Structures are given as C-alpha cells and as structure tokens.
C-alpha cells in the first residue's frame, strides 16, 4: 500500500525535488511541481514505478506569463498525485501523454481548444469541445479572453 507521504519522499529523493514544492494537504492527496524538462521522466515513474494507473484529468491554467498544466493521476488505493508543470505562454508546446494514457486524448484536446496549447503527437481526430469554424486564436479559458471578443469575428 502506497500512501501520500511515502510517494512524496520517494519522488523527492529520486528526482532531487525540493520538498517545499511537494505538498500533502490531506490524506491521499499529493501536489507537486516539476520543471517541464523533468516532467515526462517523473510522470513515467509515477505511472510505472509507483503504479498510479488512472488519469483523472488534466487541468490547464492561465498564469499570465505561462500556462500551467496539472496532470491528476490516481492510484487504486485512492491516492491522487497532481503533477504540475508549466510552459511559457509564448510557446506553449507540450508532448502528448496519450502513449501512456490513451484516454488522455479528450483532456489534451481541451487544452488545445480552450487554452491554446500545442500538443505534439496528439492523434488526428475531431476537435473538442469547440465547434468547427471557431475563430483561430480565440482561447476561451485564457484570462484575457472575454465573450465580447467574438463580436465581428468570422
């Protein structure tokens, strides 16, 4: 049985992460922040090493200068690790994680449509959730986006 504190300790030791940046606010919840360069490595270890096999969802946040992405991965015992990473808003490029979690497709498409992230390696398919013909460059979940910005745009 893995628990939140054990996961925290193991991740901190293995990847040399600052324990200040790993928080365990309550039982079965771990929030940690990793630089994007290290993200893939940490995620793979969380999934394969620590056996967190269920992707709850991916949350995208607009933080002004950068876009943050939180990957919530759950263990069968109820523990959820929220892995946060960020990329600059000017070049918001992510690698897809659909090779690890095939069900991540819709969550990544949401990031593309609503936050304007570019996800490399995302399988081709219909866009989601915005309609065909939605104007380019309009990303509703960005903080500077207002409904009025749709006026007069074809």
């Amino acid at each position, binding site marked *: 049985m893995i628990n939140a504190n054990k996961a925290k300790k193991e991740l901190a030791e293995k990847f040399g992460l600052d324990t200040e940046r790993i928080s365990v606010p309550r039982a079965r919840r771990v929030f940690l922040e990793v630089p994007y360069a290290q993200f893939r490595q940490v995620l793979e270890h969380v999934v394969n090493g620590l056996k967190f096999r269920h992707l709850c969802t991916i949350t995208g946040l607009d933080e002004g200068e950068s876009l943050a992405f939180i990957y919530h991965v*759950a263990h069968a015992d109820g523990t959820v690790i929220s892995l946060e990473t960020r990329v600059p808003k000017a070049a918001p490029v992510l690698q897809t994680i659909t090779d690890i*979690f095939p069900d991540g497709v*819709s969550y990544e498409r949401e990031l593309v449509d609503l936050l304007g992230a570019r996800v490399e390696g995302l399988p081709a398919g219909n866009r989601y959730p915005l309609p065909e013909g939605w104007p380019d460059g309009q990303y509703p979940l960005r903080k500077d986006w207002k409904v009025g910005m749709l006026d007069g745009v074809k």
Partner: protein
Amino acid sequence: MANIKIPIGPQHPALKEPESFSITLNGETIISMDMRLGYNHRGIEKACEERTYIQAMYLVERVCGICSHSHSTCFIQAVEEIAGLAVPPRALYIRTIVSELERMHSHLLWLGVAGHEIGFDTLLMYSWRDREVVMDTLAALTGNRVNYGINTFGGVRRDISKEQLDGLLKTMDVLEERTKYYIEVASQEMTLIKRLSGVGYLSHEDAVKLGAVGPTGRASNVDADVRRDDPYLAYKDIEFKVITDTHNDVFGRTLVRVGELMQSYSMIRQLVAKIPEGPVTVKAPRKMPAGEALSRYEAPRGEDVHYVKANGTDKAERVKIRAPTLANLQSVAKMMENNRLADVPIIIAAIDPCFSCTDRMVQIKHADHGRQETLSWQALHAQSLEWYRKQGVDFADLNAKMSRRMKI
C-alpha cells in the same frame, strides 16, 4: 452491399442529447465509428471564474440535470477543503442520503432508457414509474425533483425530520421489492438477454487502458469505486459492497447497476440508523483563502473530478470539471467493434452518457423573470393534477390506486 455511412446524431431519436456519431456500416455490421462531441459546450468553467463561490455552486449544480448533486457536492468538497471548513457530521449524512437517492433515480432512469433503446418499452414504463417514487422522495427532502439545491458551503440548507427519515425507510422497502422484480426479469426474459449479452464487449485490459470509470468499468471487472477507495461524505461510516461483474458487456453493465441499486437501499437504511444529531451548517466565509484542492466523487455514472484553485478573493481562480462520461466515451469506439447497427443505441446508452456534463457551459443569458410566486410542493402537485383534470385526464384516482398497490 457497399459500405455506407450513417449519421447517429446530432439529432436522433436514440440520443437524448445532441452528440454526433458517424457510423460506417457494411450491411448491418459496424466497420468504424467517428465521434464528434461538444454540441453542449456552455463554458461553465469560464463562467465559474467570473462568479462568486456561492453563485458558482448553483451554476455547477446545473452542469447536469441527473447528477446535479454529484457535481455540486464534488465542487463544494474542494472549496471546503481549501477553506478548511469542518462540516457538521449531520450535514455530511444528509448529503450522503441525497447522493444515494440520486444514484437510485439515475440508475432507474438508465434501466428505462436501456429498455427503450432495445425496444422494450414496458421496462421503461415500469422503471420510470418507480423512479417517480425516488423523485417524489427527493422533492420532499430537498424541495426539488432535480437540481436539489440542498448543498451550501459549510453544510446543507435543510434538515431532515424524524418523520421524513421513517418515510425514507418505507420507500426503501417498496423500491427494494420492485428492484428484486427487475433482477428477476433481467435474468429470465429471453429477448432481453439476447439483446444485451455479448453486446458492446469491453475487455478488462481495454477498460483499464481506456480509463473506464463507474459501472462501465466495474462491468469489466475494474474494481474501483471512489466511495470505498477515497472515502468522502459519510461513506467511511457505512458498509457496502462494490459491485463488479465479469460479463464485460451491456448485460454486465445492467447487472452492476441493478446490484448497485440494492446496495444503495442498504446504505440508506444504515445512514438513517446512524445519522447523528446536531447542527447542519457552519458559517462559511465569503472570500476563500488561496489554495488548491482536488475532489473526487462517485457519481452514478462514475468518478467525477473537480479541481478548484482559489486566489483569496470571493471568486475562484480556476474550476476544472471532469464528468464521468468524458472518461467513458473513449471506450465507446472500442465497444462498437464487431457489433451491429441495431446495437449502436444500446452500446452508447450503456455507458449512461450525459453529454451536457461532458461538454459543460460557456455563456448564460438571464431571461426575464416572470411573475414570482412561492408554491409548496403539495400546492404544485395539486396544481398539476388540476391542470390535467381540465384536460380531461384525472390522475388523482390513478395515483391513489397506485399508492395503494405499492403500499406507500
């Protein structure tokens, strides 16, 4: 016959909500399927950022008409965690009771829809009649048939009286008896079994790989249930079994849901027996301190996930909602393989899709409010009877007859 492509949706009698499935057929056999989602996107997540917490709570409750309590509780849990609110135990019990009642009405609804999709309308009529009992109970407890509005930050808005709890136990007896009858029907009616068995096959490996949640996953023997794995509300105080099944098909999903109904009845009995006395609410601040929380909740359709980030004001920085249907939709394409056109509706229905949950909202326009009037539930009920009587249909006799027959 050459391959033909037939559209199921965005408008189609089998779909209660607009989504588009384009199915390529060879004769009656499905070759491939293409999905287009997003017709119900209303931008709720964005709207939540522009509203105060209490406004957002009511908005989140309206993400879905069926699992409204799921979304509002899931959201509220996250916010309460950020604010560090200690919710009184009695309030947690009341939330749990409503949550299990919601599961009942959702599963009974599903049973009816499943019956309708395979042309078995009798099952639809019977299970929806019984669902009505749950809806009336919910209306009596919370004041509403859907979008109960019982939650508030720090507790619940209404207490449940002793009489209501006793009534609840009686209702459970009626429902349990009816559900046993459905189990009998489901295990004996040949055309039903023929139409459900082997349809929409999803192997255990695929279910894990594609992240199937809720009854969809459990019917493929994925032993996961947030209520047990990540206990919230009052679930750690009561005993229940997580129903799993190894049929891996629509029949299995039916058995899981019917089995969960039986568990829910027993849960309600335990909750009624154990409900502590005390206040039902504590005062909550208007501005929530900065922080973040992830909340999980076992909605009738599976795991519901809400992430809330607070920034110290009275409005949330970010609210992320992941409804169970979005997690299950990835499995649908897999389930369609090697099936026939006739099975499309039931396969889609078998994950109990809720597309408005999946797509959520963008923009709300306030309609002009008409005449404001406060009506009690009884008055509203009487008014509906009166309206139908004017149309020449008298439900009063029938209602009386039905309640006698069902001994409520």
